[in-house]
């Protein structure tokens, strides 16, 4: 049934969910079009868009899931309907409908075709035999991988960019691999004769057999119908078990053709600079489109540009049209560096070449220059080190003589030309169109201190990866230039590390963030509001030291309240729809039936979702801000305390059942877990703290994955420290053995306080211990042998913490002023937030997420900003 479509909510239908299609959806979402329109995506493949450019990395261990370029919640978050495994088969422009294979018919107001390409298979006899493959989708790779298990020899038809990649993959699968290329050299599109020769040498050197200048005439099959070999145009035959066709791609324009849209002579849906086809209601983007300059682009970067152009056109915002793009490429095939950029073949009038060749080493470099010395393009084979710099210099006069740019380092040439020579406008990352100026600004203005941060901030280097080298050099150079080697300061507001700030707060007994900022902050930050990084960090330092420096131990008192992240501020964990979760402390995981019943009753009465956590306690989800005090009033009355699931503080001390019940147990692990949890509850730290106690060496409580873990021995307790689960698991190190109860507690006191004093912001004990100079031995010296003479002080700090601990929720409930902040609206305290909503799932609730389709606020775009905003 065609879905209704009204003028108020127009329907945009996207056909094809590849890389460009997904980018188009992201561009729509960024322009809030997803809130105003119904969006339907019809996809042929059985999985959401993935990184086709990195397809080959499947063979080096990347899973299909890891290849995905579609964030798991993207569709739900933006209310987009995605139909997988159901290609569009029919387009009727008169009724504006698209019909899919399964018979689904969707009416569109705007149609966007992003159907990509299909691999071209030359029409040779036997091309459909068992054992013949193409190399385009994850499914293709899975099929090749399965078939290769029984094969010994593989053959790739086509020695272009993709053919070499496929050949590298077959080689990696352990097959003796042949490449058959019709042209007289490999990669004929990208490299010239000289480059082809160097490339041939390197590829042959890797053990692949290259047959250039011959065509594939026939695929030969055995009696069982499976591939047994190929016959070549020179009459010879090659035996092979498997054939991969990689003889180029053709735009998938059949839907457009049958729908009566204009297509180019050699295929590709013709579009204008807005990416509109001959029907203004239909756009085409990516590899299926023939751009306004008459070209069909087989690369992802131009496709992304088209996605942006089409989205802007649909959103009605002005944008430069798509008029064409750069065709530079760098081959990622293991072991061979090949790159070409700009006018690689020297097609411009009067242009001149500068060539360096060393066929023994398989190196060939050519630069194409115009007579006045402007760099027009080039080819690099065997040594593509300079690719990033040279590509970015294209179109300008390089600051060095051209021959010096191609000579190998150490042969009288000056040190390699660094990215310092590039102008700010030079494009460093062509996949995402990021200039040198943008990368520099990421370092200088956005305080990115590492390459990953710059990647995240600018997107540079997150496409094909071809710019990784130059990006790294540039970031390093920029960091060096911006003064010190690397700024170790906490954030843009403080030049001190967390450890230094801890010492300052302790020594000067500073209890105010403002005072600390105004006296010890960076010059420009004094007198300001600071930032979201240093506020919670300083809040945590003040809380850790509260009894010792005379600060309030209640984290929401006075100025301290304004420092806390939202979780600490509401003493609960913020969830994705603006609701909160509630986690009462259940020390050691031990709980009475009566208390279990209270939790059950509270959850039932407030309609909360309940779940047993990985930390041996119970999480209640879905509370609105205004319900938190009511819920906690019930819990506190029943004897529960805050579980600090929201704080960088002690979380849980897990236990195993231990000696009391278990036939193997040698100590009372439950009692020790409860004692430790009660001792350290409420302790604020640089990051969260977790612990566990096991009753014997079988380790059922998983103590060795904890920040401090305890395992019972016949003589007492072994203490392990620095363990971690999470993304980078680390087994804890044994710090001391056979401790008595009192010895154990003293040692943990010292360990924790030493960690709190010296760790970085958000540094778990595992990372801290790995960083600590002298490592475990040094730690043991300090906390066991008291080599620094600070143990008495560490112990007294912990004693003060224990003595001053009070339950945060009980304190909050006692004070009407504190309770006043638990409202959804300051001017309507009794009104719950109407945007926090739930839907049923498995007899409980879950957040109602298509929130983005509700009440879309009009976007206030000031034209001035739009025009000057950097991309």
């Amino acid at each position: 049934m065609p879905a209704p479509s009204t003028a108020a909510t127009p329907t945009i239908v996207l056909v094809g969910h590849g890389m460009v299609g997904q980018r188009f959806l992201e561009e729509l979402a960024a322009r809030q079009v997803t809130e105003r329109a119904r969006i339907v995506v019809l996809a042929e493949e059985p999985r959401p868009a993935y990184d086709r450019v990195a397809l080959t990395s499947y063979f080096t261990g990347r899973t299909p899931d890891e290849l995905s370029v579609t964030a798991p919640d993207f569709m739900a978050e933006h209310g987009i309907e995605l139909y997988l495994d159901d290609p569009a088969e029919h387009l009727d422009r008169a009724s504006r409908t698209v019909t899919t294979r399964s018979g689904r018919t969707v009416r569109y107001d705007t149609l966007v075709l992003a159907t990509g390409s299909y691999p071209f298979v030359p029409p040779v006899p036997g091309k459909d035999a068992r054992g013949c493959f193409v190399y385009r989708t994850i499914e293709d790779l899975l099929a090749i991988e399965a078939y290769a298990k029984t094969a010994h020899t593989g053959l790739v038809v086509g020695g272009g960019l993709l053919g070499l990649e496929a050949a590298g993959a077959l080689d990696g699968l352990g097959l003796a691999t042949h490449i058959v290329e019709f042209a007289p050299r490999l990669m004929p599109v990208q490299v010239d004769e000289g480059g082809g020769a160097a490339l041939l040498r390197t590829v042959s050197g890797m053990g692949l057999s290259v047959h250039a200048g011959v065509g594939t005439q026939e695929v030969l099959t055995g009696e069982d119908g499976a591939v047994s070999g190929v016959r070549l145009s020179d009459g010879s035959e090659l035996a092979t078990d498997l054939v991969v066709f990689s003889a180029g791609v053709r735009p998938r324009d059949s839907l457009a053709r049958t729908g009566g849209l204009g297509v180019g002579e050699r295929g590709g849906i013709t579009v204008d600079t807005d990416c509109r086809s001959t029907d203004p209601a239909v756009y085409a983007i990516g590899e299926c489109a023939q751009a306004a300059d008459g070209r069909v682009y087989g690369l992802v970067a131009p496709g992304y540009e088209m996605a942006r152009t089409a989205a802007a056109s649909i959103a009605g915002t002005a944008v430069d049209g798509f008029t064409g793009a750069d065709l530079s490429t760098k081959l990622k095939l293991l072991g061979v560096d090949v790159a070409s950029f700009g006018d690689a073949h020297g097609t411009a009038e009067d242009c001149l070449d500068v060539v360096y060749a060393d066929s023994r080493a398989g190196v060939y470099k050519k630069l194409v220059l115009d007579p006045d010395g402007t760099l027009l393009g080039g080819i690099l084979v065997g040594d593509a080190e300079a690719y990033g710099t040279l590509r970015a210099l294209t179109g300008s006069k390089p600051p060095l003589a051209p021959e010096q740019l191609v000579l190998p380092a150490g042969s009288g040439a000056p040190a390699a030309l660094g990215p310092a020579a590039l102008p700010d406008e030079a494009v460093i990352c062509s996949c995402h169109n990021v200039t040198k100026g943008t990368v520099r600004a990421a370092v200088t203005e956005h305080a990115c201190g590492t390459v990953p941060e710059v990647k995240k901030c600018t997107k540079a280097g997150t496409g094909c990866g071809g710019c990784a080298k130059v990006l790294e050099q540039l970031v390093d150079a920029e960091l060096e230039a911006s003064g010190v080697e690397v700024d170790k300061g906490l954030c843009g507001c403080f030049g001190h590390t967390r450890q230094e700030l801890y010492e300052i707060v302790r020594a000067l007994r500073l209890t105010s963030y403002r005072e600390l900022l105004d006296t010890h902050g960076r010059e420009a930050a004094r007198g300001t509001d600071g930032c979201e990084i240093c506020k919670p960090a300083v809040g945590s330092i003040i809380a850790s030291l509260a009894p010792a420096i005379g600060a309030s131990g209640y984290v929401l008192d006075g100025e301290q309240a304004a420092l806390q992240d939202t979780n600490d501020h509401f003493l609960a964990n913020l969830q994705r729809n603006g609701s909160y979760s509630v986690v009462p402390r259940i020390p050691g995981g031990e709980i009475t039936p009566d208390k279990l019943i209270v939790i059950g009753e509270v959850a039932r009465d407030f309609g909360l979702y309940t779940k047993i956590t990985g930390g041996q306690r119970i999480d209640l989800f879905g509370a609105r801000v205004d319900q938190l005090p009511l819920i906690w009033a019930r819990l506190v009355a029943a004897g529960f305390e805050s579980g600090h699931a929201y704080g960088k503080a002690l979380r849980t001390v897990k236990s195993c059942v231990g000696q009391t019940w278990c036939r193997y147990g040698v100590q009372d692990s439950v009692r020790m877990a409860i004692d430790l949890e009660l001792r350290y509850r409420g302790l604020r730290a640089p990051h969260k703290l977790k612990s566990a106690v096991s009753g014997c060496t079988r380790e059922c409580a998983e103590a060795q994955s904890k920040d401090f873990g305890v395992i019972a021995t016949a003589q007492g307790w072994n203490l392990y420290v620095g363990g971690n689960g999470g993304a980078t698991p680390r087994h804890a190190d044994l710090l001391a053995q056979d401790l008595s109860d009192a010895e154990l507690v003293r040692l943990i006191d010292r360990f924790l306080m030493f960690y709190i004093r010296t760790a970085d912001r958000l540094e778990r004990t595992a990372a801290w211990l790995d960083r600590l100079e002298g490592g475990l031995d040094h730690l043991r010296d300090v906390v066991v042998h008291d080599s620094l003479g600070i143990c008495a002080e560490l112990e007294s700090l912990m004693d003060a913490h224990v003595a001053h601990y009070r339950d945060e929720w009980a304190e909050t409930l006692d004070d009407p002023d504190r309770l006043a902040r638990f409202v959804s609206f300051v001017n309507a305290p009794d009104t719950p937030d109407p945007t926090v909503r739930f839907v049923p799932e498995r007899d409980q609730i879950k957040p109602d997420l298509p929130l983005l389709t509700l009440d879309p606020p009009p976007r206030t775009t000031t034209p001035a900003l739009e025009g000057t905003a950097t991309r």
Partner: protein
Amino acid sequence: MTTLTAPRTRTGLLVQLLVSGNWFTVCPDDLLAPGRGVAALLPDGRQAAVFRDRGGRLHAVDNRDPFSGAAVLSRGLIGHADGRPFVASPLLKQRFDLVSGQCLDDATVTLTRYDTRVHRRKQRITGSESPPVPG
């Protein structure tokens, strides 16, 4: 049906926002602590996040976090970057300039902002008035 309560104030000073051309009272001035925000329900059903920075200046933007759709920006931390005040979303930490509404981490996103003032009866005390932003 939601009723918006008229705030009681100890100082006689009120925080107001300019909503569709009219000054709309949000809360007593002394309720808004520096560095921390509050959410207000507006007559048209929208929500505003209202902040006071440590210099005493008021700022108000749409409460809805455009990246998650949740109405939570009032619960974010505020700060200064390059001398300009911002609020960081408590969910995924994107920062928004409080004066222009512009997202500092994604130039394509801009929040609606509201003009603000502190008001005693008919008299204006301080404020940040500029021509209303077209809705």
